């Protein structure tokens, strides 16, 4: 009984591991490429490279306010998914790779749900679904916090 369960679990682990591996290589590869495009000035950045160091010692809220005032001139501060409007800029292009790396777990979890359902493993199916909802909520930006 124990051996059988272990073998079944291993099958899910392999599914999870395969997606994790591909996504990890994709994310890290994109990270190196997009950073190269940004740092070598191939794609112009929204905040000039020479100016970034003037802002990074401020807290996040002050930093967002300052870069919006000095460079971005958007109606709202750059929180949540607002950065997608600046995807053509070298600095914000890097966010795509970060989103891939941070979002990978959600896809891995979604991929093992069919296997768990097939085994009628109700408890783990529910846990996995709840985890996907929680990570989805965190990723959505709905969970906002007050500044310092």
């Amino acid at each position, binding site marked *: 009984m*124990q*051996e059988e*369960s272990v073998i079944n*679990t291993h099958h*899910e*682990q*392999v599914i*999870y*591991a395969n997606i*994790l*591996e591909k*996504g*990890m290589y994709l994310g*890290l590869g994109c*990270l*190196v490429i997009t*950073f190269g495009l940004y*740092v070598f000035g191939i794609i112009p950045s929204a905040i000039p*490279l*020479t100016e*970034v*160091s003037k802002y*990074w*010692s*401020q*807290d*996040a*809220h002050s*930093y*967002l306010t300052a870069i919006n005032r000095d460079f971005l001139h958007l109606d709202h*501060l*750059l*929180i*949540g*998914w607002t950065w997608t409007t600046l995807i053509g800029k070298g*600095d914000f292009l*890097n*966010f795509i790779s*970060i*989103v891939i*790396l*941070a979002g*990978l*777990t959600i896809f891995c979890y979604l991929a*093992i749900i069919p296997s768990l359902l097939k085994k009628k493993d109700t*408890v*783990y199916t529910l*846990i996995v679904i*709840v*985890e996907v909802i*929680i*990570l989805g909520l*965190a*990723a959505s930006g709905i*969970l*906002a*916090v*007050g*500044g*310092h």
Partner: protein
Amino acid sequence: MFDQDNSICANIRNSRFRGLWTTIALSLVLLCPAVVMATETVTATTAATPLAWWIWPVSLFIVTLCMGIVAVLGGIGGAVLFVPIVSGFFPFHLDFVRGAGLLVALSGALAAGPSLLRSDLANLRLAIPVALIASTSAIFGSMIGLAVPTNIIQTFLGITVLGIVALMFTAKKSELPEVPKADALSSALRIYGVYTEGSTGQTVNWKIHRTPIGLAIFIIIGFMAGMFGLGAGWANVPVLNLLMGAPLKISVGTSKFLLSITDTSAAWVYFNQGCIIPMIVVPSLIGIMLGSFIGVRILKKAKPAFIRWMVICLLAFAGLKALQKGLGI
């Protein structure tokens, strides 16, 4: 006979002290470049030369490369070194350092995850319930961490890092903990497994106990991981191994894999609050990962006890620095 014993004890004590002093010296030597670079860069930034911007990412890359090596040799995650050292010696605000720290821990876990899962050294059935609790509390930890004034977070970061140093001093490890009977919850969730011990070829059947209290502790661990951006391997392993009774290799492997889920949830909160600056994150990630690759190669020849002392000294120094910065001394 007693004289001989005393003489042996004295020799051991002397050699221990020699080891300790050598460790302190080496830690300071390793840390010096970071401090020197930080000082030099401050001067360069003050002078406002047009090229000043690249000095920071380059120095960050060099420091994180060293951290990556030390982290592998010391058997700890990179983020636990990254956050206190970078927040202590670089001019970046703690918000950005914590955001980068979580991504450093996350990337390391993502890189290690596939092979750990395939070799059964990370157990998905053990990780899934633990991850649900830890990732949920990490979200709350990160939300509170971003709402509380920085000096308070920096002070608590210093206290936490010094606590980790104390934990490293005192915590024991058990290769194969004695688990007489699996508890009801772990039995219901069917958390058990088999792995092959590489050194002996022996097949090890394992199970766990004290699952409810273990899961409860992961609420605190997740919360702290989110609040300080530290990763949580330093706390995961003792709880999985010593409290819940998972074999050491399973505990280490599952802990590393767990970070890919726990830190994901907290990283999203930091990301959505604008705490990610690519110029800080990317050099750190590349530095830590390259350092880890080098560290793995050095690991075969390194002396574990010496490295452990070195990591403890580095962490103690970084913890005191965080405390000093937080208290504004």
